[in-house]
């Protein structure tokens, strides 16, 4: 996991108040949202993550489809931020 991906994962855990998650067990391609996510996050968490990313990195996810695609994994999210900031 690169530095941005690590940073994003920490930000997500802080935003969604997930202090018990062992970050070392999360892979860059693991699902971020939904029943298959090791974080146990749902659509309300996804909304908060989208708002936080916009605030912290100035990158907007202004459509549901964009969020759905971008929040598939921390690797996808990092790529999206790199491409759009």
């Amino acid at each position, binding site marked *: 996991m690169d530095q941005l991906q690590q940073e994003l994962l920490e930000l997500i855990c802080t935003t969604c108040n997930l202090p018990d998650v062992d970050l070392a067990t999360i892979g860059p391609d693991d699902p971020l949202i939904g029943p298959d996510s090791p974080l146990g996050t749902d659509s309300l968490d996804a909304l908060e993550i989208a708002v936080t990313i916009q605030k912290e990195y100035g990158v907007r996810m202004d*459509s549901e489809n964009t969020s759905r695609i971008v929040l598939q994994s921390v690797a996808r999210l990092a790529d999206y931020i790199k491409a759009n900031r």
Partner: protein
Amino acid sequence: MLDFPHTQSAHCESGVAANLLTHQGLTISEAMAFGLGGGLFFGYFPFIRINGLPLVTYRAAAGNILRQIASIDGVSMVEKKFRNQDEAMAELDQALAASIPVGLQTGVFWLPYFPKALRFHFNAHNLVVYGKEGNEYLISDPVFPTPVRCPATDLARARFASGALAPKGKMYYLTRVPAELKLKPHIVQGIRFVCKMMLASPFPLIGVKGIRFLAKRLGKWPQRLGPEQADLHLGHVVRMQEEIGTGGGGFRFMYAAFLQESAAAMQEPRLQECAASLTAAGDTWREFAAMAARLCKKRGRPEDSYPAMVACLNRCAAMEEKVFTELRQWTRQQP
């Protein structure tokens, strides 16, 4: 088999409208279809209950976008409803045999290609059937990234789902479109329609007044309903705003995209400014939703509270009042 241009969209009705027009040679975006169809709205109807929760809607009534598009000069659309399931499926097959892509209103719950978690009882989901192979229909469902397939028995069941907004086998298809779409008058007409809904409704539950009404009611939920029910109501408002195909910000981002596209098409900087202001309103709606989500999840920040959400909603109302007043003035200056 038909070569149908499937494009994924946020919202099914505007997506189907855009895909059907594009198939006929009039390439328009989902946002443009949404805007021409006068899709933006706000309504809070506490006396209408969806799964026991009050109806809050950020878009025009189901079917309105397609109706508005069908009323454009030079566009003709055939629309049929049925009592008999076999007759409805036979008519669909006939249209497909004639190489006509057909729009259908369906109940999401009966469509097997939807993941189970998303199969809820919503009967106004639009899709396009563009072919049949054996006993399976080929479907362009705009909320999916690629075309999907559906067995005939399941599609028939989805077309005749019962309950609120029952589709009654509704099918529709375009029979005529103009060679070229003169966007300008239709953009003005679409904006005029939305301004009227947002600013001039006599009913306090609709438009900007409706947003303020929701703010007032929401502030009282913890006392009136108790904390658990209040959170349930709050989660429902957030889901209707940010999920259910709204494109985020309760369709505000999608309408802003329409205004931006219209500004470019008409060389009209005032529309560009309105697009930016509406995007800012969408961001404020999102701020509200994020605060609501934190409270629902019991991880509110010190500044999060029901009064803070009320203030946020009132800010949304003020911002939208300003945008739509400006847009109304602009439409009055158009021929």
